[in-house]
C-alpha cells in the first residue's frame, strides 16, 4: 500500500481464514471498495478483499458480515493532541470514536 491510501478515512482488514466469501460485505459497502479474491483460502472460499482505496471506516461491512472476527475496520485518527491507544491487537480504542453505523 502506498502513502496515498493512508489518507483514506478508513481501512479494512479481512481475516482470510475466517471469511467464508458470502459477499454480504461487498453488497453492504457504500463506497463499494470491497471485492472477492482471485484465489481460494484454505477452506476453498474466495474471500473478501479490500480494494485499498476509498474506505470511510463506516463499519457497515462489519455489521453485515456473519463472522464475528472476519473483518476489522480501522478509522483514521485525526491529528489532535489527544492520547489515542494505537495498539492494534489490544482493547478497542473506539471509546471516543463516533460510530457511523449506529
Amino acid at each position, binding site marked *: 500500500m502506498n502513502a496515498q491510501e493512508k489518507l483514506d478515512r478508513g481501512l479494512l482488514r479481512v481475516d482470510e481464514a475466517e471469511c467464508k466469501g458470502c459477499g454480504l460485505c461487498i453488497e453492504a459497502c457504500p463506497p463499494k471498495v470491497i471485492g472477492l479474491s482471485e484465489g481460494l483460502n484454505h477452506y476453498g472460499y474466495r474471500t473478501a478483499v479490500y480494494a485499498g482505496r476509498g474506505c470511510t471506516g463506516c463499519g457497515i461491512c462489519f*455489521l453485515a458480515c456473519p463472522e464475528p472476527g472476519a473483518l476489522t475496520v480501522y478509522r483514521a485518527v485525526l491529528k489532535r493532541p489527544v492520547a489515542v491507544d494505537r495498539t492494534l491487537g489490544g482493547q478497542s480504542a473506539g471509546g471516543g470514536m463516533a460510530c457511523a453505523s449506529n
Partner: protein
Amino acid sequence: MREDVADFTIAHEKAQSFYASYERKGELQHQTHYCPGCGHGVIHKMLARAIDEMGIQDRTILISPVGCSVFAYYYFDVGNIQAAHGRAPAVATAAKRSRPHSVVISYQGDGDLSAIGSGEILHAANRGENITVIFVNNAIYSMTGGQAAPTTLIGQKSTTTPCGRSAANEGYPLRVSEMLATLEAPVYIERVGLGDNKQIAQAARAIKRGVENQVKGLGFSLIEVLSPCPTIWKMSAVDAQRWVRDVMEKTYPLGVLCDRTKEARVHAMPAAAPPLEELPRLLDIPEDDPAVDVPEGAAKAVDLQVRVAGFGGQGVLLLGEVLAEAGLDAGLEVSWLPSYGPEMRSGTSNCHVRISNETIDSPMVSSPNMLIAMNEPSLRKFVATVRPGGWILYNGDAIPADCVRSDVHELSIPFTHVADEIGDARITNMVMLGALLEITGALPQASVDSALKRLVKSARWYELDERALERGREIYCGSLAVI
C-alpha cells in the same frame, strides 16, 4: 500491514463477548459453524456488541437453543445454559428468577420457538418475565434440511410442502410477534430484518434496546429478526438478503408491535421461594413429627406392593394415602401413585402403594402382593395380577367361583356391613386397611395414628376411622380363629 495502519485506530472489531477461539472441532476454532451468509452470525455480532456496550458480559446468561444456533455456547464468552427443544424461555425464567441480577437472554429459531416451544414463549411472555428473547425467523427448519416451519410463507416450498405451503393444508404462517403483542405483560416487541444496511442497523438498535430493557428491569422484551438462510433457501447470500426484504417482509412486516417501555415500572421479581426449613410449616406438617426409626437388625424386610381398587368415592385413594403416610412415618421408603384414568369419572378407581425398607425403583405396582378389592369389578380386573403367596382382601361374602385362586391367601368379608355396624358405610376403606395392617404387621399403630391425624382433619371422622381400623384388625384375627 501494521505500518500501513499506524495512523488508524480500530473502529470495529470482534466483540469481547466472543471467545478468542472457539473450542469446537480441531482446526475450525476461529470460525463459526454457520453457512456463508447465515443471519445467525450477524445477529450474534449485534448481541455481542450490545453486551459489550452495556458492560454486562460477566452477568449475562445466554440460553442456547436447539437448531442451527445450538452451538452458541462455543462462541459467546458469557454464562450459558443449553435448553431442550422449545424450552429456552422456560429455562430462562428459572435462571432469571434464581439469579435476578443476571441478564438472561433466550435465543431461539422459528422451528424451536414457534413450533414445539410455542407454549413456553406464550407463557413466559404472558408472565412478563424480565428476560430478553431473540427470535430468529428464517421461515424454515434449517438444521434438519428444510421442512416447513410454522413460519413458512404461503407458497413457499420446503421438503414437507413440495408444492408450496397452502393455507388449506398447512395453515397460515404464524405471526408470533403479533400474537404476543396482544398480551398485556410484554414491554417491548419489535420485528426487524436483515434485508439491507438500514434494516441491519435498526436490528442492532432493537437488540440493544431489548437487552437494555432487562438491565433496567422493565420486563419482557422480544426481538424477532427476519434472517436469511441462503443454504436451505437455495440462494446466494446476497439474493437471500434481498428475499428477506422483498418477500418475507410482506408476510412479516417490520416495526414495533408493542412498546410499553415508557410506562413500564421496574419489574417486581416474584417473591423468593421459601427456605427449605419453612416447608413443613407451609405444608402443615407438625415440627415434632415422630418419624420412628426402624431399629437396626430388628427391621424385618418390608416389601409391600399394594393395589387398592374400588369405585370412585369408596375412599380408595385415601386408604392408599393413609397407608403410605404411615409407612413414611415409620421411616420406610414409600410411594403412592393414584391412577387417574377415565374410570375416575365413574367406575373403578385404583392406586398403587409401595412400602419398603429398600429404595423403591418404581411406583408402579403391576403385580401386587396385596390387593384390596372394594367391589367385584375391581376384583375381576386385578385378581390375576396378584403374586402367588400374596393376599386378596375382598369386600364381599366370597370370591366368585371363577375368580378363586389356590395360590393366594384371601379374606372375603362384606366389610361394608361391618362399617355400617360401626356407624357409616363410608369407613369401609378403613376397616379393610385395619385388616391389611394386621396381616402385614409391618407398621406400628403409632405411625398409623399419626398418619390418620394428618390426613383426616375432622375429629368425628378421625374417631370413626380409628374404630374402623381396630375393627378391621379384629376381623382378621377372628378369621384366623375360625380357621
